[in-house]
């Protein structure tokens, strides 16, 4: 039997051991022991970079709020957030704040709570709309008797992003056909426009077609004829981007030297807007936190077994010398993604259109690749310059999926058809290979109201 002294000694040893263990864990790469619960699919990739969100051990809600806004603040601004914090710091809404403190993201979106995290990747209380809009039927009789949880689940409203759902927008797009006459996405900007927004070292690499004799790689590296041929066929060679434009790095003494394997940072020299998107999305967010690159094996959705160990960098999709954007738009995606939606793509009409476009049988930007929807063309602004580029944050318009209405669907389809299609989970699974089987009532309500007002 232990004496008191032995028991205390034993407790002391255990405590010291535990402290040493925890300190070691805190400084190790694997911090799993500190996770209070499983992390949502939006953040699980970076859950070992605790300080990405928990920037300070003290400070509570404010620290977390700042962390949320540092990554998501800009997208909320762009989305014309319908419920900005300033709405709730107004003293006249103090009563509402006691019901739902919408000043803080974590009031609704609690991390590490897998059991209550919804498909969208966040926790959301079911009755968040009802707390302030309980009396909506007084203003909109059409809303009488609707379920309190249906505002945001029926495809009609979102808390933050209602750019494609507000009433006047619906009214403006009443009666559109299923497929628009001019069904295509915006074309990407030409090189000269693109140069306005990037810091391309034009003095060192003037815009001119390069040929084999111009190759400036060290003699050993320049021997690979396959690489040389690939490069010569790209827009890089066409635009004067020589080997050393990408294949250089800085030594510790700040000397420029050749590197065989440039990182994503080399690409960012000229493709910073794309890189920013890539680092903000699920393909690059680990790199943004100085973690090892994302691998399909770490994904929470189905991936192809033989792709599990691929590392996600720019060249994973674009390859290292061909930079074939057609490959990056479909084949690269399907080389990893193995879920039903991805597997159904090649049976869809969208794929037929894509094949026609790349075969030169249809107009530029009229095909629908994976990237058309998930890496859509966006207008990037820098100063007064406006350039159409591809959004490389594949998560930017994904959830709630009504974000796709304006950025993607409405380029080719009528709004009513698009809303219905996005509300049909079965249709999404089969990659829009049939017609929507669900009808969202929002457009009907607007139609009825317009008629009532005109009578």
């Amino acid at each position, binding site marked *: 039997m232990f004496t008191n002294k032995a028991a205390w000694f034993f407790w002391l040893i255990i405590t010291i051991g535990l402290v040493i263990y925890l300190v070691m864990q805190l400084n190790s790469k694997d911090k799993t022991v500190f996770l209070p619960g499983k992390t949502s699919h939006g953040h699980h990739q970076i859950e070992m970079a605790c300080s990405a969100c928990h920037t300070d051990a003290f400070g509570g809600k404010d620290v977390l709020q700042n962390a949320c806004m540092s990554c998501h603040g800009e997208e909320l601004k762009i989305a014309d957030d319908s419920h900005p914090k300033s709405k709730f*710091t107004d003293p*006249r809404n103090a009563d509402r704040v006691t019901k739902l403190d919408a000043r803080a993201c974590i009031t609704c979106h609690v991390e590490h709570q897998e059991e209550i995290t919804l498909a969208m990747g966040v926790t959301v209380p079911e009755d968040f709309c009802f707390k302030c809009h309980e009396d909506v039927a007084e203003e909109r009789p059409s809303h009488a008797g609707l379920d309190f949880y249906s505002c945001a689940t029926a495809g009609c409203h979102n808390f933050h992003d209602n750019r494609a759902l507000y009433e006047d*927008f619906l009214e403006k797009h009443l009666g559109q056909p299923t497929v628009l006459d001019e069904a295509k996405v915006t074309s990407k900007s030409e090189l000269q426009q693109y140069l306005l927004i990037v810091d391309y070292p034009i003095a060192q690499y003037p815009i001119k077609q390069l040929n084999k004799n111009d190759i400036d790689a060290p003699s050993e590296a320049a021997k690979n004829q396959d690489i040389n041929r690939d490069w010569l066929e790209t827009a890089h060679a066409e635009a004067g981007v020589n080997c050393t434009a990408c294949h250089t790095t800085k030594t510790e003494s700040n000397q420029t030297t050749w590197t065989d394997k440039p990182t994503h940072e080399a690409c960012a020299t000229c493709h910073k807007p794309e890189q920013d998107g890539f680092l903000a999305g699920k393909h690059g967010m680990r790199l943004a936190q100085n973690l090892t690159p994302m691998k399909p094996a770490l994904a929470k959705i189905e991936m192809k077994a033989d792709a599990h160990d691929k590392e996600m960098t720019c060249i994973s999709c674009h390859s290292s010398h061909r930079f074939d954007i057609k490959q990056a738009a479909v084949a690269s995606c399907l080389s990893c993604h193995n879920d039903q939606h991805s597997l159904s793509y090649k049976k869809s009409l969208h794929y037929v259109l894509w094949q026609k476009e790349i075969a030169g049988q249809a107009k530029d930007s009229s095909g629908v690749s994976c990237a058309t929807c998930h890496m859509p063309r966006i207008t990037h602004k820098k100063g007064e310059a406006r350039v159409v580029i591809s959004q490389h944050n594949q998560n930017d318009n994904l959830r709630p999926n009504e974000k796709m209405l304006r950025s993607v669907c409405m380029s080719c389809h009528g709004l009513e058809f698009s809303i219905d299609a996005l509300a049909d989970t079965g249709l999404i699974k089969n990659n829009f290979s049939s017609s929507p089987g669900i009808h969202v009532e929002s457009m009907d309500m607007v139609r009825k109201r317009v008629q009532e007002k005109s009578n």
Partner: protein
Amino acid sequence: MKKQTIILAASIVSSVILAGCGGGKSGGIEPKEMADALHSVMEADRTVYTRLIINRLAKEEKVIKASEHWKDEKALVLPAQMFRYGAERVAEKGAPFSYSLLSEWPVNKQNKPKTDIEKKGLTYIAENPGKNFYGEEELGGTKYFTAIYPDVAVAPACVSCHNEHKDTPRTDFKIGDVMGGVVIRIPVKS
């Protein structure tokens, strides 16, 4: 919002608005003076924007539209939105006062009077043209000096836009009518 003392509020506002005007008093200014000063700036800016920008360009010259959906419509921001965006920016900066534009006949129902003081004040300014309403109220555990000023239709654009809006509860506004009120709140010590 942090509980702020009126002394702090007065010092900030007096430095911005009343500097050099001889309007300050030693030891700070009264909440009413501060609210009146703030309102005079708000009212002036609001009137100038409505008359010189909206009414002139959208109503008279018809060279550009003004629209609630100004981004989508590539149009001018409506005066009420201009006012609200300003109030939101002030809130984002954590200023020691807040303000809003309310009405007993709001296009957006979120802007109808809600607190007792708002209801009382908006009725008072509508029934007593040219007069302001002052009171105190406690919201979310903080005591506020609340001032309510009449918001008058200064240009044809105000009247036509509100009378014709599909969500308006009133369609007979005329120039010079009190259409709503500017509510300014200043936290004060209990």
